[in-house]
């Protein structure tokens, strides 16, 4: 049973009495039923039933329907008289004034019509007061605009007469004025010079004064130049144009804001108590907004409908696909497609379909929520927003969503779709024999790498082991090197700080691919380093680092130390310089040794402030493809241990790279990618959880 409240509540939450007397009676009876003792209840219930049966003949309802009928004819007449009026004033005023006049005309018609009904319905009250607001303001606006428009027309007319003698005269006047100014300036400067000579003012003060005089002179000339008829006229027109366009917009906004204010304070009264609009329009976003009377808003929500029914659903059903079959393609993977069909493309289009559907569902739900909320509030008495209000709130509350949309779009389609595809790929059997078409194989790939089996999976554990060792040793080495170099360089007794700092910056500044490639050249069979090492060790045959797995690894670690220390050096230097000197002085007084100061003050300070960046260095090195691949392509190769695909210095990332691009074991590559991505995520999660950044965003 529909339960009514005795009062209505507007947007702000103010209480208003009902104007619908019939509903008021119903509400009162319902209230009495709720509060009365059981014996009296039957009496009230009967009364209520009686009231409801005679709903149509209730005096209020009779007058309300009469009003509605009147209103209908009035509206019809109004639109006709509006047409007539606009024909009448057509061509007599500027477009802006015409718009204002029509607005004024409409409100002038509405005010007397709605006035007698203000006690009957809140809608009538609102229309009446809206008309009043418009009438109150419209004259002022019209006057303002027409005044400025006339002035502009005058200015434009005046422009035609400008020129000839007048202009010449003015120009000559300006020229004279300039001359006078210049003379005055010179005189001023001369008097200033004199002051210097007498020693009254300093040289600096003279310069400042001179600059000021110059500015003053230029400004005076500028002001005078507006007296030129041409220039003055141009400026005047510009300013008037600004006044007219901006002023008009501003006045209309003020008017709309006043009306919006009125709407917020005037409730709405409807007989319905269930927000059915939302459910009615669930499958057709936009329709519900129409039912709620928000027409312009509805246009935008219809776009959601179009997206859902024209793009998302057909695409995921397989229409308009490039090659795939929508979501179905995800399951079949082109198994019984034509020869040219590629499983991978079916997979990507399937993934795309899934994301499109998710988008569509979210958007449809948003529309549903919107309609539901407006409808529910309307039952309480809140008037639905008009387009002006919606637009305003959209630009404020909707702002973060609107501006993050491009970011979300790029992230979904360029980051998430490929990652999802890789994830799916790891459960398929895409290998050199099955490039174009491949089936789902479940966890087979993960099993292969876990057990270290197969051509591609054989080397996994070795490579993982080396990757971990590499990450820990190379990064720690770089950090230690950078830190100690920074400490030494910043020692107060060391001279030539700038020199050392500039040199230590170089490994970071020179693009690393260049230095790595050059190192690769130097360590090649007849390269410089090979020669030096051979000489140093006094060996008979040339010692080629690149041919020896252990030497290669050690060299790589040193190269990374060379490359990575630079950045840590810069970071630590920054922190070191910000450590207050008093700490060290206090330690000195307490008799601390240099080592104790380093251990108890410097090290904790630097580590604490750079911790997230240091963690970043570890993950960076875990994925440091360039140094491994560009130095020796992951080699030297050792087929008995690693198989033919990987070398003994390959990291997981270069291994994945080789699997996916050179050897076409995409599925196993994808499985390994998933494993390390998960690992890195967990690592990063624990890293971030303890960092300030995370805690801060957590508490907000």
């Amino acid at each position, binding site marked *: 049973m529909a339960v009514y409240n005795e009062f209505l509540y507007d947007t702000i939450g103010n209480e208003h009495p009902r104007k619908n007397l019939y509903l008021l009676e119903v509400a009162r009876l319902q209230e009495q039923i709720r509060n009365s003792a059981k014996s009296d209840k039957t009496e009230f219930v009967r009364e209520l039933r009686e009231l409801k049966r005679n709903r149509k003949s209730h005096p209020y309802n009779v007058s309300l329907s009469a009003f509605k009928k009147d209103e209908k004819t009035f509206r019809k007449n109004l639109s006709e008289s509006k047409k007539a009026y606009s024909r009448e004033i057509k061509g007599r005023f500027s477009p802006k004034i015409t718009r204002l006049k029509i607005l004024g005309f409409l409100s002038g018609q509405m005010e007397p019509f709605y006035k007698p009904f203000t006690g009957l319905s809140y809608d009538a009250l609102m229309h009446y007061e809206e008309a009043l607001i418009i009438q109150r303001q419209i004259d002022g606006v019209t006057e303002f605009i027409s005044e400025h428009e006339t002035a502009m027309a005058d200015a434009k007319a005046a422009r035609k007469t400008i020129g000839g003698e007048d202009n010449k005269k003015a120009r000559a006047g300006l020229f004279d004025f300039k001359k006078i100014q210049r003379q005055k300036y010179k005189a001023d400067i001369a008097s200033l010079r004199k002051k210097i000579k007498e020693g009254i003012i300093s040289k600096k003060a003279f310069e400042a004064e001179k600059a000021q005089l110059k500015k003053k002179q230029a400004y005076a000339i500028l002001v005078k130049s507006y007296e030129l008829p041409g220039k003055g006229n141009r400026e005047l027109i510009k300013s008037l144009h600004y006044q007219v366009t901006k002023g008009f917009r501003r006045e209309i906004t003020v008017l709309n804001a006043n009306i919006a204010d009125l709407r917020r304070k005037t409730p709405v009264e409807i007989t319905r108590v269930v927000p059915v609009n939302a459910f009615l329009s669930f499958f057709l976003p936009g329709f519900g907004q129409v039912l709620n009377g928000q027409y312009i808003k509805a246009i935008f929500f219809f776009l959601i409908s179009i997206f859902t029914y024209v793009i998302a659903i057909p695409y995921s059903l397989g229409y308009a696909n*490039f090659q795939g079959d929508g979501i179905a393609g995800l399951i079949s993977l082109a198994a019984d497609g034509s020869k040219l069909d*590629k499983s991978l*493309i079916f997979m990507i289009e399937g993934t795309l379909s899934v994301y499109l559907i998710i988008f569509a569902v979210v958007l449809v739900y948003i529309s549903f929520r919107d309609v539901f909320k407006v409808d529910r509030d309307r039952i309480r008495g809140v008037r639905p927003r008009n387009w002006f209000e919606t637009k305003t709130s959209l*630009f*404020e*509350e909707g702002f*973060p969503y609107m501006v993050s949309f491009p*970011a979300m779009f*790029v*992230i979904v389609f360029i980051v998430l*779709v*490929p*990652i999802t*595809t*890789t994830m799916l790929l790891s459960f398929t059997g*895409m290998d050199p024999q099955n490039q174009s078409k491949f089936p789902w194989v479940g966890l087979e790939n993960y099993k292969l790498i876990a057990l270290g089996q197969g051509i591609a999976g054989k080397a996994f554990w070795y490579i993982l082991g080396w990757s971990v060792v590499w990450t820990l040793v190379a990064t720690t080495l770089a950090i230690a090197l950078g830190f100690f170099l920074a400490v*030494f360089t910043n*020692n*107060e*007794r*060391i001279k030539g700080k700038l020199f*050392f700092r500039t040199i230590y*910056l*170089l*490994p*970071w*500044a*020179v*693009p690393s*691919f260049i230095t790595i490639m*050059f*190192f690769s050249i130097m360590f*090649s069979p007849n*390269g410089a380093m090979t020669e*030096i090492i051979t000489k140093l060790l006094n060996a008979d045959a040339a010692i080629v680092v690149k041919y020896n797995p252990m030497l290669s690894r050690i060299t790589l670690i040193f190269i990374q130390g*060379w490359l990575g220390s630079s950045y840590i050096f810069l*970071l630590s230097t*920054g922190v070191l310089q910000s450590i207050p000197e008093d700490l060290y002085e206090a330690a000195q007084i307490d008799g601390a040794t*240099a080592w104790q100061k380093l251990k108890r003050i410097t090290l904790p300070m630097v580590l604490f*402030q750079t911790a*997230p*960046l240091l963690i970043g260095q570890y*993950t960076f090195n875990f*994925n440091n493809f360039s140094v491994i*691949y560009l130095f020796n*392509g992951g080699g030297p190769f050792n087929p008995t241990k690693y198989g033919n695909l990987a070398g003994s210095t390959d990291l997981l990332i270069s291994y*994945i*790279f080789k699997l*996916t691009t050179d050897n076409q074991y*995409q599925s196993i*590559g994808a499985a390994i*990618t998933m494993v*390390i*991505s998960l690992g*890195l*995520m967990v*690592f*990063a999660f624990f890293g971030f959880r303890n960092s*300030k950044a995370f805690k801060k965003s*957590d508490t907000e």
Partner: protein
Amino acid sequence: MKKQKHKNALYLSDRQPLAFAGKIGVLMMYIILASWAAAIIWPLYQMIVSAFNGRQGSYLILNREFEFSWEHFEYLFEETLYLTWVKNTIFIAVTTAIVILLIVSFTGYAYSRYRFKGRRASLMAILLIQTIPTFAGIAAYYAMHTIISNIIPAFSRQMMLVLIYAGGGIASNTFILKGYIDSISTELDDAGRMDGCSSMKVYRLIIMPIARPMLAVIGLWSFIGPFMDYLLPRVLLTSPQTYTLAAGLFTLINDIRNTNQPAFAAGGLLTAVPIVIMFILLQNQLVSGLAKGSVKG
């Protein structure tokens, strides 16, 4: 003589006089610092020398006699596609920087100033997404490019590369910029709003001018990233005409058919010089920008 002695006895420093052990320590520090400096300079010096040494053949050999010549640079410009690579690299790097700046300046502002639904969840998602390495999508990029370029024929592999770099850079840079904008007082926003600024105007007239130094740093890093990357160009770009510098220069030492190590040294030198100058001039901004972003979050 007496005077001299007197002068020696006068010790005019805040610091304690060094004991013998301390003197040894300082000396050791100098030795370490100097040898590390030498270790840095030596390979770079070798590169510069070999780039200008006319006596070097296509393989670099130590202690060759030196004879100054522009020969390798001439080879670089005439026989290789060096200039095309420079053009490609600059195109990719600049476009990436612009796309990232455009997107991130908005998201950084939105995440810093607005408390909207889904903010925390998406921040978390951003944090996790940025840990997934960009190469995770390698296998899909190819096929995706095939699909897109079939719909939009003008969509080149380089543009795909730009999009991938941009997609990879949004998350972390949003975070960095958010941290920076957090440190700008909201009273400025309030003042602007009182004067009738809309969100867009606050962004344009207040936040962006103040955040400009950070935007410059983000732009610079977004420019440097694609510049230095080798992996993705190697995967996505297939013809030498479309290579970036990293991929192109590698062919000079890796590909037996056109190996020319001195020319590589020359190309590396040419590429490194502007970057090194930029880094030396802007080192404080580059480092502090990164540090700020990560600490304040």
